[in-house]
């Protein structure tokens, strides 16, 4: 191995990176955009605010109390619907996914129930809703809680079964804190895999690898320069993502030695997989398709965007077989929960996988001279 040769190849790769603006954009800016978009959406889920259309057919002081109670939850911005219109038609025409309808004679029933102890008195509040809407379930869930409290208050008895939240963490975490390590792992994976597959397939197709094989650069020198290049890219994109996360979302992530370790393992794993794919794919187009076939399941099933608990059990089992899962969870253990033992276990798992896949990749990747 000759470090000067490795250094010369690294410099060439970095110059190409700097001069290819599209590659630069997708390596650095794209993950930042993802952080900004998802971070803005999920920055503080407690402050989520829904629009709620309310049609008060009773129009009394008692029925108005419902609107006040709903507004007080902080979850809804109330939009009044004219009692004269048909609620179903209104929802359809205005693309509204839920209209809450307070019935006429609500106050009368309320008085009968509360003052005359009439057990047959009740009021039916209607949910006129669009079941195909994804957010309507959440709205109804909150409304059910509000009405359960109202009914419980009307019974005049204190709550029997009460609940209390005890977090296993000493700090309160936000979604963005969990999200950033996943995005870092995903961005490094994408750059390492696509970088290895695309660059090497293109160079092979153009005959540059064949030309290089007639010079003193060895296969090991070439792979090492590729790895170092991916480390540099990973360092640049990770630094950019963390800076944006701290500056825009004020995240509270711990940065210690685990971060570079997991980045290194991430790079080794996916450069290794990339070398195997480069051997399989003969042309740049098939190489890109093969890389996508690896990247997409990793991206969506390994917990980078969606928590594993939200997936069916068989998919959770599948996710635990994906290498990116261990990078995601390892980074979260280290950066979010400060859990060194979990980080150690996950680094050992992904480290073993990285070594295996990298050796396989070196064996599979063929320097032209050996054909």
């Amino acid at each position, binding site marked *: 191995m000759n470090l000067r040769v490795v250094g010369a190849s690294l410099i060439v790769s970095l110059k190409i990176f700097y001069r290819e603006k599209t590659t630069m954009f997708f390596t650095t800016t794209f993950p930042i955009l993802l952080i900004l978009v998802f971070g803005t959406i999920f920055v503080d889920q407690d402050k989520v605010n829904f629009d709620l259309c309310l049609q008060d057919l009773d129009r009394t002081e008692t029925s108005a109390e419902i609107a006040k109670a709903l507004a007080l939850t902080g979850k809804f911005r109330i939009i009044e619907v004219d009692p004269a219109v048909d609620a179903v038609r209104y929802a359809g025409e205005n693309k509204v996914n839920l209209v809450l309808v307070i019935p006429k004679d609500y106050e009368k029933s309320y008085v009968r129930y509360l003052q005359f102890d009439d057990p047959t008195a009740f009021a039916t509040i209607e949910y006129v809703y669009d079941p195909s809407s994804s957010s309507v379930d959440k709205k109804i869930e909150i409304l059910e809680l509000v009405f359960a409290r109202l009914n419980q208050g009307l019974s005049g008895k204190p709550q029997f079964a009460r609940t209390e939240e005890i977090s296993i963490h000493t700090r309160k975490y936000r979604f963005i804190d969990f999200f950033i390590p996943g995005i870092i792992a995903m961005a490094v994976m994408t750059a390492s895999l696509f970088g290895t597959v695309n660059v090497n397939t293109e160079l092979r197709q153009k*005959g540059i690898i064949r*030309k290089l094989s007639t010079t003193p650069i060895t296969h090991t020198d070439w792979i090492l320069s590729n790895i170092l290049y991916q480390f540099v890219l990973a360092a640049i994109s990770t630094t950019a993502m963390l800076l944006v996360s701290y500056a825009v979302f004020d995240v509270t992530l711990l940065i210690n030695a685990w971060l570079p370790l997991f980045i290194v393992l991430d790079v080794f794993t996916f450069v290794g997989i990339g070398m195997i794919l480069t051997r399989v794919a003969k042309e740049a187009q098939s190489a890109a398709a093969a890389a996508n076939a690896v990247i997409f399941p990793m991206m969506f099933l390994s917990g980078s965007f969606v928590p594993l608990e939200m997936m069916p059990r068989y998919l959770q089992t599948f996710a635990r077989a994906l290498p990116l899962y261990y990078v995601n969870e390892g980074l979260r253990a280290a950066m979010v929960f400060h859990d060194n033992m979990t980080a150690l276990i996950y680094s050992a798992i992904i480290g073993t996988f990285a070594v295996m896949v990298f050796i396989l990749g070196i064996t599979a990747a063929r320097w032209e001279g050996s*054909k």
Partner: protein
Amino acid sequence: MTTKVEHAIEVEHLTKRYGNLVAVSDISFNVMQGEVFAFLGPNGAGKTTTVEIADTISKPTSGKVRILGMDVTKGKRDIVPRIGVLPQGFSSFDRITVRETMQYYSRLFRRRNADIDGLLDLVNLNDKAKEQYMKLSGGLKQRLGIAIALVNDPEIVFLDEPTTGLDPRARREVWEVLLGLKKKGTTVFLTTHYIEEAELLADTVAIISKGKIIAMDSPVQLIERNADYLVLTMQSVDERAFEVLVKMGFDLDRNNRKNINVRVERAEDIRKILNSMKDAGASLPGIDVRRPSLEQVFLKLTGEALEDTYEGKGAE
């Protein structure tokens, strides 16, 4: 330490198979130090297969190839620093400039003091030193490829189809560079399917067809040994002259509306033809007698014409 050997390249009973396909079949030849050796043949003849074994890109199925006395299957590490290679369809990094590319390859060869300006001068690329590779024309790219092949001051230069795909002007520019190398005494192993290229540049031409060498000598000797006839060219002849020749039973090649090439076996046949023309009162403004060209020798030996000659229109 380098050792001086008489033969720069020695090839003995070389065979290369790809599955059932025999690309090169039991060929042997030597290339002397300082010689320009051309492998001439059509596409698929086995030229690139042979040169890629000789320049260590691939390995032989059987047989021996020695470069500067070293076996290519065992001595790649020692051979590579002493040779320069322009592979077929040479390409380089799109966004790297000419000078940066030269610097990169000189670093690969650990030649920090390589005379990059001198090499760029040699291939007439100094004014393009700051251009990125992707912005160069086909001819300039090939010239850069040749300059890269020379960056380590090699003892042997392998040039695989150096002018394929170039227009006539760019081809002539590359030939100028190669003539410069010849003048310097560099050993050059060249593959080509351009007869003019082989005739102009090579000291020795090996004609290869279907994986076998079918003739090998200097261009002059190849013609001498294989041309047992003369070609009489009659310029601007009229229809009457054409009829006379047909009546006499000669093998004719009418290469355009006015000129006729006549293959004649004996010198006295020429006199007979001219007398018959005179008797018939045919017009005969100009005649030319010469030995056949290397192209005609190639055609005779291989039974197939080369697809893309200098006059040919397209590049492959």
